[in-house]
């Protein structure tokens, strides 16, 4: 057996993706909630296609849909597709480069407004909430 | 596919909950045996007695403390509603044999009298003349006693 998994790897941080990254809350630069880590994008390295690197966090219904069971997952993704203005909508992609810190909450160094269009939030805001007086100011 | 297992489990759980709800709501079935009918009569009499006692307590409290008319009319209205609901449910049950007919007649007659007395109280209360409630107490107390005796008869002999 040439390598024993118990032996520590090069000193880099070791984490288990599902246990410590997936489904964690994203927090943006002005400390407000920015969705969840619904999935991770894996990209093969140029020189050895078997080696995979985590290049981005995927967030929003487009990313969560496939992880939900059967019909419900497909319905969730379908609803996302219909509400999303783009023709072939992709889930929100947050490059790993902007991740500031890991832990119970994953902090990113950009504002959530610069993330892709979150269709559900956008649709609900425009069609329901904005129509109600007082929707623009916090409660007294 | 293993990943379906969790969703199948939740669907199963919801199905169990639904059947439970259905089983519970369809609880008034035709009574097969005589003792079953007796027991239904006994429960009906107990429910109506509870409603009459509620009215008695309510009117006593009104008499002593002159309670708010709104509350008294709702209390008496609820009591009447309970009694007449119990009476209607019982009237709809098919008595299994002739002897049960007698039980049904006696029960219906006393229960009917009680519902009428409660209706009178509710009418007076809704009109706001609470003073007219107190004179109804003796009649309600007699009804309560007769209901208690009937319930005891139904309880005792039936087993």
């Amino acid at each position, binding site marked *: 057996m040439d390598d024993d998994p118990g032996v*520590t790897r090069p000193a880099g*941080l070791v984490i288990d*993706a599902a246990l410590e990254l997936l489904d964690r809350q994203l927090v943006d630069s002005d400390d407000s909630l920015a969705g969840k880590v619904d999935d991770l994008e894996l990209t093969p390295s140029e020189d050895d296609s078997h080696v995979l690197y985590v290049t981005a966090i995927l967030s929003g219904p487009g990313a969560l849909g496939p992880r939900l069971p059967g019909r419900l997952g497909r319905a969730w993704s379908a609803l996302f597709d219909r509400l999303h203005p783009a023709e072939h909508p992709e889930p929100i992609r947050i490059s790993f480069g902007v991740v500031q810190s890991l832990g119970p909450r994953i902090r990113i160094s950009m504002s959530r407004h610069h993330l892709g269009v979150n269709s559900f939030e956008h649709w609900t805001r425009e069609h329901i909430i904005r129509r109600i007086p007082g929707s623009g100011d916090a409660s007294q | 596919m293993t990943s379906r297992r969790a969703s199948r489990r939740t669907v199963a759980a919801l199905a169990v909950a639904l059947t439970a709800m259905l089983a519970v709501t369809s609880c008034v079935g035709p009574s097969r045996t005589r003792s079953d009918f007796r027991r239904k009569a006994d429960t009906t009499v107990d429910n109506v007695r509870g409603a009459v006692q509620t009215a008695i307590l309510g009117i006593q409290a009104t008499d002593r403390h002159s309670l708010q008319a709104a509350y008294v009319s709702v209390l008496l209205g609820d009591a009447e509603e309970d009694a007449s609901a119990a009476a209607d449910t019982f009237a709809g049950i098919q008595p299994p044999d002739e002897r049960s007919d007698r039980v049904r007649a006696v029960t219906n007659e006393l229960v009917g009298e009680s519902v009428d007395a409660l209706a009178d109280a509710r009418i007076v209360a809704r009109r706001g003349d609470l003073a007219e409630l107190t004179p109804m107490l003796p009649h309600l107390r007699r009804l309560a006693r007769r209901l208690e005796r009937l319930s005891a008869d139904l309880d005792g002999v039936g087993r």
Partner: protein
Amino acid sequence: MRLSELLGRPVVDADGTSLGEVRDVRLVQDGPLQGTFGAAFRVDGLIIGRYEVASRLGFDRRGVKGPWLVATIVGRLARSSRFVAWEHVDATEHVIRLRRRADELQPPAPLPQLRTGSVG
């Protein structure tokens, strides 16, 4: 490719015996630099186990002490989980095939020890 495409897939070892499903993907931060985050995470290996709850709660790797009753029950369920290095994984078809036999695989090393470099 998405990470979730690995999770939950059935796994068989070199001899074809089933080992359960992929429960987690172990990452090591030693890849090329990425923006301000630092080195990228590389897929280092897979955690394979039979019971999703046990792995998901991290009793097999996280050093969660947990109340005695829960720790023993869930801990026993988690005992089946194994770690396999990514080099020995062939994930081309739906059923993932390993180039190692079941008895050659070790339980996943607990994460706290890995982080403090004090793995025995």
